């Protein structure tokens, strides 16, 4: 490479003397660009006339059966459902207050260690899960009476648990007190 070539290569940048009209050029470029690829592949089932017929039949059957079910059993079910829900609400309002009060008592109790409280409350959580399942069953329109009974049993179990616990605590308190007297 001679000096002349070297000189030109070193000053290459000086040969760029023009400025492009960026926005004008981009406008023309953009109109010529392919549309971005869609990320999901679409399979055109609808192009086949057989699929169109099949889809129409399925939709028609679906609509018919929905109307049929709702007309025939809808009325009955909705009344039944309302009654069941009303009953559930009654049960809830009766027992929830009771349980909340007793849980509070357990929490306040100074005789129990935090671990014991935690263990006891985890039992309650298990019963909570059972309750949620029962509630779902009720919405499915299975034998409502039996489900409601199960809900009541569920609540009763909790109360029983708490009562037992409180009783144990109280009896141990008494024992402690007796000991104090003998001393």
């Amino acid at each position, binding site marked *: 490479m001679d000096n002349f070539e070297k000189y030109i290569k070193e000053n290459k940048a000086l040969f760029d003397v023009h400025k492009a009209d960026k926005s004008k*050029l981009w406008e023309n470029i953009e109109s010529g660009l392919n549309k*971005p*690829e869609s990320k999901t592949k679409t399979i055109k089932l609808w192009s086949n006339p057989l699929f169109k017929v099949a889809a129409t039949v399925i939709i028609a059957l679906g609509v018919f059966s929905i109307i049929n079910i709702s007309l025939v059993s809808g009325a009955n079910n909705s009344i039944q459902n309302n009654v069941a829900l009303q009953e559930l609400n009654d049960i809830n309002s009766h027992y929830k207050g009771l349980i909340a009060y007793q849980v509070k008592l357990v929490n306040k109790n100074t005789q129990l260690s935090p671990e014991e409280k935690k263990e006891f409350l985890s039992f309650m959580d298990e019963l909570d899960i059972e309750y949620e399942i029962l509630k779902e069953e009720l919405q499915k329109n299975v034998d409502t009476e039996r489900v409601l009974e199960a809900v009541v049993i569920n609540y009763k179990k909790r109360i029983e648990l708490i009562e037992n616990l409180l009783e144990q605590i109280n009896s141990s308190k008494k024992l402690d007190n007796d000991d104090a007297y003998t001393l």
Partner: protein
Amino acid sequence: METNILYTHKSLVEKSKLGDRNAQYKLYELYVDAMYNISMRMMHIKEDAEDVVQDSFIEAFNNLSSFRYESTFGSWLKRIVINKSINQLKKKKIPVVPIEDQMYHIKEDAEDIPSEIDIKNIIKGIRLLPSGYQQIINLYLIEGYDHVEISEILEISPSTSKSQYHRAKKKLIEIVKTL
């Protein structure tokens, strides 16, 4: 190190491959002036150079999936611009390689190279060269292609590229001295 250079603007290129318009615009912004200057040096007419640049970007973005980092994105794009410019010149029947009649017969001892010349005069000097000589000077001196690459671009043999370049350079120096 070389691999790093090849992957310049990789994330923009990859997004552009998926059709991301913002990434495509960013790449366009980075390269448009350089590409426009390359085309202007070859075409000399603003509208022609603009057409070449537009077509080159459209072709580049629409065929980006075929770009596999064998070169930098810039040099890949530059090659598209150069090929399109050459094709346009051919369409306009403007010679891209020197024709026999235009060949200058310069004495072998004529190479008295000035050490520093005004770049503006060199640009002017290139413009005064016959079209065929202009392209070879542009491709070798300014765009930095070697004679093998030039032989592919201009569809001539590497030895022809070499000999014609030397003639073109001598003529250019002669012209520049008179400016």
